[in-house]
């Protein structure tokens, strides 16, 4: 269906979006496949590489340092395949309905569910954003720069990317930064994993006496691949980008490319972490003081440490952008006000304010001296894992809603995988939550 200016009132948001769609239409008309893919890429890659954030990369490195490669190398591709299933649904629902996740849940299932979702998101996003600033701080600390610089850098980036009043500008800046997630792969190469070491680490068996730590790492690794903010972000960004049902195929390529890149780069962090593997070495908390970059420098040389530190700065920076955006989308959608990067700050004041406010709030927290850095990073992912099943259930419900999706509803196999993912994520989060609680309250040894 197409429209002309005389048919309906148009806003500046419509104008900006239709300009981007013009390029898509021309590329499609001229059968320029690669250009079309390039124009339609963005939300999927950003959601996946945005989730290869500071806490996630620290979790992968901690996995490698603590348990080697045996347990997690096969797990990472499985987790990202799982992430693809969830994110493809988000993209599809966003492209077909042109609406964000928060708006659809609130309108379709009631205000209570919409606001619960937004509240969960805000809580997990705030904790995760603290961890993102921590990640930048850890990276900068390697270069002897302090928390103030980390805060200034993160906030300046958020304000700078918001200044253009265009979704496309914001997306391309974020994509440009996300490319540097590949630094973790470079760090793995620079760590020069020897064949023998890799083989030995593949044979490494997690120690039986430390089930809680293993559960923490497992839950945080699951939380490192799918989180509530990714669901809100990709659906809303797909709608904001102007994707339509015709673009679903390209949206799938975008999401699959993002999942593949994230798995490879996450694997890089895992291999770099495995260079620190000693079997009886320091626990993951032992790395908190010096940080992983320093530890990697000690084991594999300064180049590996420097690249890893830069990677942590990138991971934190990109995630700050995407997580702030997901918060702002959710706030705007639930409040029923304008929520688009294509709107001007004057017309989408709440959207822009939410974007900056949550970043500011998280930045203030990391300036508190003596904050337990790694513990915050790992627990941020765990909290996201625990709250994820509720978001996923609504996602599956929306993707099965014939009235909204028409012929684009989930296939049976997608539902079967979706339900399996929900059960798996729920079990991982609950296992850690309950086990650690029982230990903390000394109800079990």
């Amino acid at each position, binding site marked *: 269906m197409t429209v002309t200016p005389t048919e309906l009132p148009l806003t500046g948001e419509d104008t900006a979006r239709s300009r981007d769609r*013009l390029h898509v239409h021309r590329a499609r008309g001229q059968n320029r496949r690669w250009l079309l893919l390039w124009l339609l890429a963005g939300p999927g890659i950003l959601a996946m590489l945005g989730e290869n954030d500071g806490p996630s990369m620290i979790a992968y490195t901690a996995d490698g340092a603590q348990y080697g490669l045996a347990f997690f190398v096969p797990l990472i591709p499985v987790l990202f395949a799982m992430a693809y299933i969830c994110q493809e649904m988000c993209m599809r629902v966003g492209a077909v309905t042109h609406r964000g996740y928060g708006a659809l849940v609130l309108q379709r299932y009631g205000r209570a569910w919409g606001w619960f979702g937004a509240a969960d998101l805000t809580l997990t996003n705030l904790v995760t954003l603290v961890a993102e600033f921590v990640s930048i701080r850890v990276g900068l600390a390697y270069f002897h720069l302090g928390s103030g610089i980390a805060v200034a850098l993160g906030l300046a980036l958020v304000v700078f990317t918001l200044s253009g009043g265009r979704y496309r500008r914001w997306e391309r800046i974020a994509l440009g930064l996300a490319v540097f997630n590949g630094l973790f792969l470079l760090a793995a190469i620079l760590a020069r994993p020897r064949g023998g070491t890799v083989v030995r680490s593949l044979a490494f068996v997690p120690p039986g006496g430390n089930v809680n730590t293993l559960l923490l790492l497992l839950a945080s690794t699951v939380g490192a691949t799918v989180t509530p903010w990714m669901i809100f972000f990709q659906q809303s960004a797909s709608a904001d980008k*102007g994707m339509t049902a015709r673009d679903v195929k390209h949206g799938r390529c975008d999401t699959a490319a993002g999942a593949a890149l994230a798995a490879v780069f996450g694997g890089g962090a895992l291999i770099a972490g495995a260079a620190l593997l000693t079997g009886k070495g320091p626990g993951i908390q032992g790395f908190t003081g010096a940080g992983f970059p320093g530890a990697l420098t000690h084991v594999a040389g300064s180049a590996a440490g420097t690249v890893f530190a830069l990677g942590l700065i990138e991971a934190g920076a990109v995630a700050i952008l995407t997580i702030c955006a997901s918060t702002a989308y959710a706030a705007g959608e639930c409040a029923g006000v304008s929520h688009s990067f294509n709107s001007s700050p004057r017309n989408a004041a709440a959207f822009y304010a939410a974007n900056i406010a949550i970043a500011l709030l998280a930045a203030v927290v990391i300036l508190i001296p003596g904050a337990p850095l790694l513990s915050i990073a790992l627990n941020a992912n765990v*909290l996201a894992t625990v709250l994820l099943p509720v978001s996923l259930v609504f996602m599956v419900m929306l993707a099965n809603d014939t009235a909204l999706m028409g012929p684009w509803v989930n296939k049976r196999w997608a539902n079967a995988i979706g339900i399996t993912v929900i059960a798996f994520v729920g079990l991982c989060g609950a296992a850690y939550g309950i086990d650690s609680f029982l230990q903390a309250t000394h109800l079990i040894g």
Partner: protein
Amino acid sequence: MNDAHSSLGVPERDPRPAQRFDDEQVVHLERGQLVTETSRPVPRAALSARAAGGLWALRVFAALVSLMVMYTFIDQLR
């Protein structure tokens, strides 16, 4: 564009004077993508009592486990 707006009596939500807009661009935007369309809420879905009960059970479970995680985190800090 302004003429179109005034003739319909609908105020423009985001008037950016520097914006150029022509028919060629507009025809590539689906009607459902326009802000005026996405601003209209979708109809409420009817949830069965069993579905609503299941959602609330999941909600309560997630909230309880979240509280456990937060308690453990705070306990670890002490």
